Every structure is written in C-alpha cells, then in structure tokens.
C-alpha cells in the first residue's frame, strides 16, 4: 500500500516532466540513428604516401584503394615533406633499399601504408619468381620435345626389327615364336604416356559466418553495448537526481516522519523507475529491429530482462551515489567518475586483451556483465542458462546496493 503510493507518485512525477521523458525515450533513438549512419557506411580510409625517386614497378604494386601515392620530383628530408604536403608517410629508394617515414599522427593510416608496402613487396617478389619459372618452363618443354623425338625413332627401329623377325618366324613355321614376338611388338608400339607436369592446386575460399553475415557492421556490434549503456546512464542520472531532490527539498525527511519503512521507499523507487527503464528498452529495441533491421538472434524477453536488471543496478547505484552529492551539479560530476569508465569495459574494447589489472577493473563494473550478456543474447542467441552467471552478478550488485541504501537512510531517521 505504502510502496504503491511511492510508485504511483514516481510515475506521476515522471509523466508530468515532459523534458525528462523525452530525454529518456527520444535521446537514445537520436544517438542510435547517428551511430547507425556513422558506422553503417563503409567509408574507405585513404592514407597518402609521398614518394621520391622510387622505381615505377614498386609504386605500381604499392598503390591500393587505401593508399594514394604521390610522386614528388624534388627531394627534401622526410619530416619536411610530410609536414609540407600533409602526408601520412614518405618513401624513398636508394639502390634496392626502400626507406619509409611515417607521420604516425593517425595509427590507422600508418598501418594502412605498412600493409600496402608489405603486400606490394610480396607481389613484386612473386612476379619475379613467376618470370624465372616461365623461362625455366620453356627450356624444359624444349628438352622434352627433343627427348620425345629420340624415343620415337627408337620405337620405329625396334618395330621394324620385330616385324622382320616375325616374318622370318612365320616363314619357318615356328608359331610359338610368332606369338611371343607379336606380343613384344604390341608392347613396343603402345604409345608411351608422357609424364604429366603436376599442376599447382588453385585455392578458392567460400566464407560462412556463425553469427550474423558478411554485412555485419560495427553498428551491430556496438548496438547491444549501447542499449545497455543507455538504460544504465539515464536511469542512474534520473533516479540519483530525483532522490537528491527529495533530500534537498526536505521531502525525504518528511516521508520518514510517516510510518513508512525505509525499504518501502527504496522498493517504490525500484519499481517506479524500473517501469520507465523497461519502456525505454522496448522503444530502443523495437526501433533498432524495425527501423534498422538489426537481426536479434536471441530472445527479446532476455534482452528486456537484462536491461531491467541493469536498470535496477543503475537505480540503486544512483540513489547510493546521490547521498554523496549536495546538488544536481555535484551529481553530474559523478558521471565522468562512475558512468563513463564503464563504457570502456562494456565490450567496445575486448576485455580479454586488456592488461591483467584492467581486467580486474572490468570485473567490478556492472555494465561489463550487462553488456556482455546483451551481446551474447543479441548476436549469438545465448540462452538464459548461458547468461545466468552474468545475471546473478547483476542481482548481487543490486542487492548489495539496496542494503547499503536502506542502511544509509538511517541517517535521516533512526528506525
């Protein structure tokens, strides 16, 4: 009854606050749309490589659609050239040595040039190998032809000899010898099958994908992470600030002058804001599947469940953190401290590849568990049992924070 009153009040307050509603429901859609177009179009990154005095053959092989080669007639130190022409790299040749200098202001462009150089040089080596092999092949073919001629001559001589022997044997009436010789003749005249040169196996590839297809983009990878992040961020902010307001306007203290239990207040908040978190999730998930046609491999209900748990953790965390803030501005100050670091550990950067101590940090971030579970469900179709550990850890976070909040409220009322 008292919890219901709190829930009803939270809902009414939220519905009256149109701007906050818009922030919660429309802002994620706006950000998602932006992300969709930013990550969807396969823009080709092009690095510019300046060259001086480099062999034409080399340049031809280095040039790809990712590397634009510019030839410069005048020579200058690499650093100067890079600065003057705003290049990503500068290549010079002295004899058979190629010297490359990278601007390295953009690591992606540096690696593009590196890759192009490497593959260009491999291609060059291959071509010279091919040329050598071709000349050898021609020589071999000539020798084979000569050999074949000699063999044929010898066969003809043998045949002639055998034929005369057969004629003589027939004349003498030795039938046994005739059959034996005829057999020999057949053997000799059988055309020798020339040894075939072994052809190299030509490899072709066909690709199959376990998750998604070859159209999978960054957007699809990032989407589950961002779905979790939106819920976490907005619920954290809104619940934290609203409890802060209760505290600063004195309504919290007034609430506690009624026989309400501290747990009933927290519970009312959890349910009230939990409802908005679920609505937000439904809107964002439907938007991404219906408008952007993101394929959802797993169950949509699991997505809702994970987001609800994430929201509850964010809610209890927001309420907890709000006790350390004395104004809305101070609450905002916790965003770079509490919320932003979580996004780094949510799966945008693979956690398994991080330094060991960073992996430890990742494991105390609620968003790490939530986003991982979301990614597993949305892109790999994980089942409830497969993500159950992540869910249990989220529940653990929630329970621990709820207890802290209930105990912490003792500051305002002693029972």
């Amino acid at each position, binding site marked *: 009854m008292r919890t219901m009153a709190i829930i009803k009040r939270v809902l009414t307050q939220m519905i009256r606050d149109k701007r906050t509603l818009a922030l919660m429901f429309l802002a994620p859609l706006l950000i998602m749309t932006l992300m969709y177009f930013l990550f969807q179009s396969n823009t080709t990154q092009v690095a510019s490589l300046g060259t001086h005095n480099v062999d034409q053959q080399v340049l031809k092989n280095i040039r790809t659609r990712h590397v634009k080669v510019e030839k410069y007639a005048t020579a200058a130190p690499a650093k100067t050239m890079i600065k003057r022409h705003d290049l990503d790299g500068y290549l010079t040749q002295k004899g058979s040595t190629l010297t490359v200098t990278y601007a390295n202001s953009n690591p992606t462009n540096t690696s593009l040039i590196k890759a192009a150089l490497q593959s260009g040089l491999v291609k060059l080596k291959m071509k010279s190998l091919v040329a050598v092999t071709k000349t050898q092949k021609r020589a071999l073919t000539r020798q084979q032809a000569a050999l074949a001629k000699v063999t044929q001559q010898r066969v003809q001589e043998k045949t002639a000899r055998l034929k005369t022997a057969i004629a003589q044997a027939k004349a003498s009436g030795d039938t046994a010898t005739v059959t034996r010789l005829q057999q020999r003749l057949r053997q000799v005249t059988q055309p020798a099958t020339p040894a075939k040169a072994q052809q190299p196996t030509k490899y072709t590839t066909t690709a199959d994908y376990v998750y998604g297809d070859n159209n999978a983009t960054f957007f699809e990878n990032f989407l589950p992470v961002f779905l979790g992040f939106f819920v976490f961020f907005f619920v954290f902010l809104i619940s934290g600030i609203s409890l802060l307001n209760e505290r600063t306007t004195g309504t919290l203290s007034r609430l506690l002058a009624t026989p309400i239990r501290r747990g009933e207040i927290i519970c009312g908040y959890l349910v009230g804001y939990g409802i908005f978190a679920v609505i937000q999730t439904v809107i964002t998930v439907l938007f991404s599947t219906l408008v952007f046609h993101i394929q959802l491999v797993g169950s949509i209900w699991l997505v809702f469940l994970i987001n609800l748990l994430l929201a509850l953790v964010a809610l209890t965390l927001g309420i907890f953190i709000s006790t350390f803030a004395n104004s809305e501005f101070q609450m905002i100050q916790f965003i770079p401290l509490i919320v932003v670091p979580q996004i780094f550990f949510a799966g945008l950067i693979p956690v398994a590849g991080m330094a060991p101590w960073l992996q430890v940090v990742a494991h105390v971030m609620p968003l790490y568990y939530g986003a991982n579970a979301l990614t597993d469900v949305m892109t790999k179709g994980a089942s409830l049992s497969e993500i159950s550990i992540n869910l249990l850890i989220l529940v653990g976070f929630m329970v621990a924070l709820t207890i802290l909040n209930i105990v912490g409220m003792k500051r305002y009322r002693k*029972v």
Partner: protein
Amino acid sequence: MSQNYVEARQVSKRFGQHQVLNQIDLTLPAGMIYGLIGPSGAGKTTLIKNILGMEAVDGGTVQVMGVTMPNRPVMAKIGYMAQSDALYETLTGRENLTFFGQLMSVPKAKLQQMIAYTARLVNLTTQLDQRVSGYSGGMKRRLSLAIALIQDPPLLVLDEPTVGIDPELRQQIWAELNKLKATGKSMLVTTHVMDEAERCDYLMLIRHGVALAQGTPTELKRRYQVETIEQVFLKAGRLQDANNGNY
C-alpha cells in the same frame, strides 16, 4: 486516555562538541497546546526531531503515547508539519494530500473525507487541483498543515506553522487548533510570534539548548513581573547570560 501524549525526561543531544539540548523535560498531556519559544538555533527543531524519533537522544528518554521513541508505528499517530515546506511541486495539492494519506494508511473512503475537511480548514478547497509549483508561500504552508492533519492524529507537532500566513487566516487556524484541542488532541507548536505564544496553554522558553522557564503564559508573566511574553523572554535571556558570566 490518562497517560501523557509526550513525556520527555532529561533529553540531551549533542552534535560533535556542540551541546544542542541540555537535560530538557517536557510533558504534554491530552488536550493541550504546548508552545516552544526561543530564538533560531535554540534547539527547538532538534527537540521536535527527538520527539518524532528522527534523531536519537544522547541522554534521557522520550516517550510518545507511552512508547519509547524512536518507534516507527507510533509515527502514524503524530501529525508533523516541518519548518520547510516539504511538498512535491509537480503534483497538485490533492495529490500531495492523497500521497501522504496513503503513507499514513488512511482508508480510501476516509481519505476523501479528510482531504475535503483539511482543505476546507486551511482554505485551499478551490486550489486543490492546481500544481503546488504555482502556489504562493502561504498556500504551501497551509497545504503542509493540511498534510499534518490528514490522518486525524491525536498529536500534532507543528514547526513554525504560521510563517507566511496572513493574519486573517492565522486567526482561523488558531481557532481550528483550539477546536481540535477540545476534541482531546494535543499540539506541540514552535513559534517566533509572541502573540501566538500567548494563545498556548503552556510554554517552554528554550535558549542555547536549555529550558529557561516553563509554565502557563500568565504564570510566567507573574513570575518575571512583566506585561508580555516577549518581555518574559528578554528578561529570562538576560538572566541566563548573567548566570553564565558568573561561572
């Protein structure tokens, strides 16, 4: 009910080194308006919070309705009006009343009656469905008073109830408080306004956390041989300072 509504014995409270309340005794029987007067920072609000159980006493005991505080269920029997208006601005007056009524577990049918009654009492009936953000300071004060009355409690604790309320309405409110008193309710009221102190049945003068004097307004005036409560207060304060100087 023969027992006292509030019975505070030797209540002491300190925040760090600062002694906010020093061995205060307070007895509030049924059907009485008890006034707490004193300058701001004297410890009036702290005393009230100790009585409500929001703060725990460091020394002494507080009993409300015979139950030692802090005690959560007893809070339902206390109508509390805080010094600052703790209202939900985005909700209407009626929604605020309903919300606090539900927290006090007032049955639905009775809640409707009580909302109508309290709104009439504080003269807010016509503005009840407006949002509180549009209320004037006086209207908010009146709504806070209505909220304190919503569960029809036997004991009212009113912290500065008439600040920002115009004289005419103040008269009405006092008339209503007297009517409530006649039904056996008791009120603990803090005030700055000395003519309000005259309306109380019993007074406690509190200064620097010490109860300087207690008694009915007439008694106090006779004891200090002055005409008004204001003069009682000034005289008692000077005596306190003089005594402290002697230590």
